[in-house]
């Protein structure tokens, strides 16, 4: 009996060894994702993971990649904290993930980019817009444009609106806000705009801006460039400016996305407000409408922001790169993604030498509280 058992074991062992290569072809391709799932920026993490999940679901339902292999995504929380994100990154790498999508905010992603480049891991951030994220790194890519470009578009919007005197309100302690302030200031000078007042707050989470806005009104500015996030634009900055007697234009950047959810009751206050974004939800093209409908049906409209659209595109960019590479080898996917062309919800673009898309920015205008496409600049 014992002998039979050992023969049986031997046979099983041999068979298993023979079968392994055949099974590997149907094994899922492992991908990691890092986003702030808890903490103060958890809403961003929610949008981004929903966007990725939606795309992965579609890809897997349509038969996966590389002739029938499913994509298997592991989501890790970075709490928008640099240390947490590095831990998450190392865990994902040691677990054998082939590529990593993330993270969401620029501050955290900057740290990850250096790590990824050192280890030759593919890092694709859907949303980190800080200028230098992809510079000098061969394995780091993104799906969004950079901040300096947004500041430039902001100045062009001001010119298009026909104003001369502009004021800036920004958060000096915030990388995103002060980066956009610098970019706008430079662009305003070349566009022939006169900056009549510059006011600042220490953080983007202040609740009262009335004092700064009163100064801006006194300066006679016709337009305020306000690079803040939706959680202070909607309830505080715009209503307080209107209460202080400001009747002119507001121009903001992609941080404004989602302001329609944080507006006060009187939506007419938000007329004459413009911001640059990554996509326009009312864009009639089928790919955008398909995304908007599927997302709303699955996750509801509240978390449907540009971040979700960018994450959705990032997942498809990765899929395209894997298909082009024809293998799940990280180095091959990196090679395939370098300089790739892509067409998705957030536009049609080619990645530049650093790994950042070159694309147009849709400018959105609020009309009685509804986000409407204004122009593409």
């Amino acid at each position, binding site marked *: 009996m014992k002998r039979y058992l050992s023969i049986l074991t031997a046979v099983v062992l041999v068979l298993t060894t023979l079968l392994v290569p055949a099974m590997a072809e149907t094994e899922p391709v492992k991908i990691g994702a890092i986003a702030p799932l*808890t903490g*103060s920026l958890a809403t961003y993490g929610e949008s981004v993971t929903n966007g990725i999940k939606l795309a992965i679901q579609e890809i897997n339902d349509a038969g996966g990649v590389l002739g029938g292999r499913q994509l298997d995504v592991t989501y890790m929380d970075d709490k928008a904290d640099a240390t947490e994100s590095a831990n998450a990154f190392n865990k994902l790498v040691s677990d054998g993930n082939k590529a990593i999508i993330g993270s969401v905010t620029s501050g955290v992603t900057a740290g990850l980019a250096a790590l990824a480049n050192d280890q030759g891991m593919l890092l694709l951030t859907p949303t980190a817009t800080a200028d230098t994220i992809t510079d000098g790194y061969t394995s780091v890519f993104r799906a969004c444009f950079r901040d300096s470009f947004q500041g430039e578009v902001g100045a062009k919007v001001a010119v298009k609106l026909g104003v001369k005197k502009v004021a800036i309100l920004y958060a000096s302690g915030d990388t995103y806000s002060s980066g956009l302030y610098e970019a706008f200031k430079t662009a305003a000078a070349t566009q022939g705009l006169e900056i009549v007042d510059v*006011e600042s707050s*220490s953080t983007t989470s202040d*609740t*009262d801006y009335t*004092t*700064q806005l009163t100064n801006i009104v006194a300066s006679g500015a016709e337009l305020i460039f306000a690079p803040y996030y939706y959680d202070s634009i909607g*309830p505080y900055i715009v209503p307080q400016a209107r209460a202080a007697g400001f009747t002119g234009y507001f121009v903001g950047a992609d941080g404004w996305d989602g302001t329609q959810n944080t*507006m006060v009751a009187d939506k007419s206050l938000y007329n004459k407000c413009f911001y640059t974004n990554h996509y326009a939800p009312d864009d009639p093209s089928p790919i955008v409408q398909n995304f908007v409908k599927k997302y709303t049906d699955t996750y509801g409209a509240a978390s449907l922001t540009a971040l979700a659209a960018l994450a959705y595109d990032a997942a498809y960019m990765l899929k395209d790169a894997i298909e082009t590479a024809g293998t799940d080898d990280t180095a091959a996917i990196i090679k395939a993604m370098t300089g790739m062309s892509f067409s998705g919800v957030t536009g049609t673009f080619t990645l530049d030498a650093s790994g950042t898309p070159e694309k147009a920015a849709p400018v959105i205008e609020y009309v009685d509280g509804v986000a409407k496409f204004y122009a593409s600049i």
Partner: protein
Amino acid sequence: MDGLTLFIQQVFNGLRVGSVYALIALGYTMVYGIIRLINFAHGDFIMVGAYTLFFTVPLMISHGMPAWLSVFAAIAVCATTGVLVEKLAYKPVRKRGNNMSALITAIAMSLFLENMAQTLFGANPKQVITIFNLPNLLGFNGNTLVTILIGVSIMVGLTLFVKHTKTGQAMRAVSEDKKASLLMGINVNRTITITFAIGSGLAAIASLMYIVQYNQVTNLMGYMLGLKAFVAAVLGGIGSIPGAMLGGLLIGLVESLSKAYSSTLTGGIITSAFSDAIVFGILIIVLLVKPTGLIGEKTGEKV
């Protein structure tokens, strides 16, 4: 707009912020005055009250009642939270440790409430339906005026309560000497519970006036608000009821005027972004120069 009009406007802006700080500082000072505990979770009681308003205001409106009535629901919820926090966290610690461990427990309680709110209601900011919006009176913001009026009436009411009622006398006795009060037949635990209920109830009123001005609720809203109100209470003299009112308004003014003029006065070296640093700088100066605050009473015991 000429310089003087602009200045007056900025003073009004300062009073607008300061009136809210004053209301919160009243709650801080009330609790500190009786049990010598700086309740760092007080700012988060504002958040608890604000979430209560967020949920009850639509209910009130759908039942055809004035929206501000939901402040009573908020008072009930805040007072219950305050009493629970006292019974479950502060009291056991106070029995075993000293004032320092109670202080650290208060910070822990603050973090606990903030994170619990995020788990329960999510990280997304919530918009509260406009409760009321008062017209301007002689160019003075109506909401600010009502906030200051409420603040002053609470200040007077509290002073009378503490001076002239049996419970108030008990509170003062407990604040003087817990052991002696016990010997005098005062129910010390009951007195402390009542203090917490009142202090937290005041937080609910502050959250109403905050919501009227700022409309938005988040789980972290109480953090900065609480710290600034704490500075206000220290500036006025922590433990002193009129001091809290005065300190709140002064901090609001300092914040507004430093934002408005620091950049012009210093040639752009100190910008409006420094206002928080200036406010907290005041805390350090007060603690160094006059730890009892502007109108604080002298006490032998300090935290």
